[in-house]
């Protein structure tokens, strides 16, 4: 058995782990990253990136189908699913190589294999399909970044045949003519959008009254109307009571809010009911690290109950977002290096869903703000009032802002419509820097852009919108 010593070992090469490794090396630490499968983790290989690739194909197909609206002619429009998937896998591979290059450039030692803590100052690399050598790695600081995996509910376990998790949904064996999606969070809704845009008859089942449950109710309702007008049928306040699989289809029994049962037979089912942290088989029991509800317990700098062992990203709890993992990792390593850092305020982390239409938000929803006791001022501006949106032919959507009426603090911003995922950073900066309505009102937004709606929404909250 070989043994090597480092300053810092990072367990897991997802977006949190690899970014932390690069920063660690930049700070002068001798750094080792252990990854059991793919550099870039779920995000780059099975999540954020490949789904954006397939959604882009669906989006362009949508444009081609509406070519006539733009004075264009296109006949015999069709698609090849395997080519769409091939492109998506290729993009993951390309970025995967990119991460490998970045780690090498930053002199991070990458070890392939399954990492397990072996007491607080050592990591044992257990052989797996990527590596057959057992190694002991030692370091003063060990950062656990093992990520998360799809949550499994009893009775609706994905089996990889007709009942899919996101892994199979990104490598489909057939183009399902009909599809049932269980769960209307970001993952469920993105797949529902994609397959629906390719022509699948899609049904979404959500246990709560609201789809996209984390989003502002008004925005979710606006998105729901558009999904339904695009042909997706949505059953909220409903749950799956039985699931019967035959050779090439699944019959699902659904109970609605009035306890009425209905049956639906579909080609494929996608289960997207959240994720749980990968806390098993990583040797936590050899340390004093504590876990709670499937996540490692940390303080605001990623420190666990075991000095020298840290956790960041999905394994350290919600929100399960790549950008939260990256930021948490950088804070953790900078704190280890004794740099002055400011803890994450989880209320200021933006979230994006890349369905059609897109949804993006940061901060408190209107309901959350009211429940927290704030007197609010709400601003709204619809896409239909924006020149650029009309020119793009994308007139469905809404930009909503929530202010504290007493202090002018921007408590939250919520958007649905074309390209809102690229707009939300503006409000994120505003909230991060603690601007008030005055600073936003005095900012000049460029014309003609979709971003003017952000300005108008703020103006509307103070009863001075121009184009409303």
């Amino acid at each position, binding site marked *: 058995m070989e043994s090597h010593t480092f300053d810092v070992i990072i367990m897991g090469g997802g977006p949190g782990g690899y970014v932390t490794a690069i920063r660690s090396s930049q700070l002068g630490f001798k750094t080792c990253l252990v990854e059991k499968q793919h550099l870039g983790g779920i995000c780059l290989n099975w999540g954020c990136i490949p789904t954006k690739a397939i959604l882009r194909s669906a989006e362009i197909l949508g444009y081609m189908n509406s070519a006539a609206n733009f004075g264009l002619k296109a006949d015999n429009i069709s698609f090849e699913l395997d080519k769409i998937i091939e492109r998506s896998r290729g993009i993951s591979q390309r970025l995967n190589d990119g991460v490998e290059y970045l780690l090498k450039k930053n002199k991070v030692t990458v070890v392939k294999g399954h990492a397990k803590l072996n007491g607080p100052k050592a990591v044992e690399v257990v052989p797996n399909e990527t590596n057959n050598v057992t190694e002991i790695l030692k370091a003063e600081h060990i950062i656990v970044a093992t990520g998360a995996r799809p949550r499994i509910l009893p009775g609706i376990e994905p089996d990889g045949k007709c009942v899919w998790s996101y892994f199979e949904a990104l490598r489909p064996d057939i183009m399902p003519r009909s599809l049932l999606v269980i769960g209307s969070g970001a993952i469920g809704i993105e797949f529902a959008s994609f397959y629906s845009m390719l022509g699948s008859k899609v049904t979404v089942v959500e246990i709560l009254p609201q789809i996209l449950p984390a989003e502002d109710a008004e925005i979710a309702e606006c998105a729901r109307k558009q999904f339904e007008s695009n042909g997706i049928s949505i059953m909220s306040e409903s749950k799956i009571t039985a699931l019967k699989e035959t050779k090439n289809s699944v019959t699902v029994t659904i109970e609605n809010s009035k306890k009425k049962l209905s049956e639906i037979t579909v080609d494929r089912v996608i289960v997207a009911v959240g994720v749980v942290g990968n806390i098993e088989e990583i040797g936590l029991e050899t340390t004093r690290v504590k876990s709670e509800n499937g996540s490692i317990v940390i*303080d*605001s*700098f990623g420190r666990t109950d075991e*000095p020298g062992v840290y956790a960041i990203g999905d394994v350290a709890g919600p929100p399960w977002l790549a950008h939260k993992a990256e930021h948490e990792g950088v804070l953790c390593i900078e*704190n280890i290096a*004794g*740099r*002055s*850092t*400011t*803890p994450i305020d989880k209320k200021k982390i933006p979230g994006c869903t890349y369905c059609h239409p897109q949804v993006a938000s940061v901060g408190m929803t209107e309901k959350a703000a009211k429940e927290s006791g704030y007197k609010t001022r709400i601003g709204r501006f619809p896409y239909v009032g924006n020149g650029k949106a009309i020119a793009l032919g994308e007139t469905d959507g809404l930009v909503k802002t929530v202010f504290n009426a*007493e*202090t*002018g*603090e921007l408590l939250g911003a919520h958007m649905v419509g074309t390209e809102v995922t690229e707009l939300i950073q503006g409000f994120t900066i505003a909230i991060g*820097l*603690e*601007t*008030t309505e*005055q*600073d936003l009102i005095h900012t000049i937004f460029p014309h003609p852009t979709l971003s003017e709606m952000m300005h108008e929404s703020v103006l509307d909250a103070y009863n001075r919108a121009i184009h409303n």
Partner: protein
Amino acid sequence: MPIQILMPALSPTMTEGTLVKWLKAEGDMIESGDAICEIETDKATMEVEAADEGVLGKILVAEGTDNVAVNHTIAILLEEGEDPIEIKNFTIPAAPISETKEEVSTIETLPIPHKTEQIAQKMLAKPSHESKRIFASPLAKRIAEQNGIDINSVVGSGPNGRIVKRDIEMTVSAGINSASPQVKIGDTVALTPTVPTFSKNDPVFENMPAFKAISNTAIRKIIATRLTDSARNIPHFNITIEADLEGLLSVRLDLNSTENTENRISINDLIIKAVAVALKRHPNCNAAYTDEAILQFERVDISIAVAIKGGLITPIIKDAGSKGLATISSEVKDLVTKARSGTLAPEEFQGGTFTISNLGMFGVKSFNSIINAPQGGILSVGAGEERAVVHNGKVLVRNIISLTMAVDHRCIDGASAAIFMKEVKSIIETPVQLML
């Protein structure tokens, strides 16, 4: 030609500062934007970023140097391809005057627009604290204004010491610092003496010798307000006991004579542990008074008073009652280092259920402290020293320590405090109890 790195002006009125720490060593590659050193002013500690790139050739001002004048050369940067020998041939020109400033490469700091400089100049006539540039978010400024809070007296916890909403809200909720207390008609207004505003011409200073006025830093103002409030509002009483230290000294000797050379346990660590264990056994002393109820905390979080430049701060050993000595010892070291370098996170010094202050290292026999509100008690630890004690009619020489607890009488009565102090004494004198 090598580039001079100059002491930057972090605010329009800054004339000198302390070079706290070098973040790069001689010979390190420096890229534009890299943080190269930390500079402290009376307001904040800030990282200084390099404007140029090259190799850090020579450090001219050592870490920890105070009163480094603005525009003084603090280091030399070698550009790509330059030989270190250049440094020897390089003579430092006299501190550049402002007209030539642009020709000399300086460390880039926050740009100060010309107009602000003019305003700052005008404001110099006013009391000094108002002329300093305050780094605060627009929201923090507005909430401070709405609550009549003097933003100059608030310590920022945001990036680079920026004052953010959280800091103002904490000041508001602590109920301190209100510049214009709201008094309703009919209220009885207590005639508390107010702190005089400093003015050189004040008759109070007329017959006094010449003096140097040292402006109050933000931390000084907080200490002044919080301790004045505590002394005025909390009915303090003090209880002193003497404890025989021989047992604790021998435990310490045993602990430190093992292979554990890296993490040596101090008497202070042992006292923290003893007090935490005693508080666990007597939760009525791990308490805070409020108008509605006495709060008894379920966990013992010990604040330890640490002297820092220009003041003091009380970082916290959380759950000290359940932690082992090695953990307590290493956490104390870590927290003290962070406290002195100004890198404590807010949660590392806000909170705490009981405070320990130790002046034993200065040879102080015993002393009283002012309670760190809203906590219910604070323990003052004096020096362990050989004293003559009478035992069974004989005079013996023993190591004795004096411990004084200041108590908030609103939540802890005399007998309760006495029983608690007896427990502390018992644990110190028979430290084997710490193994329980």
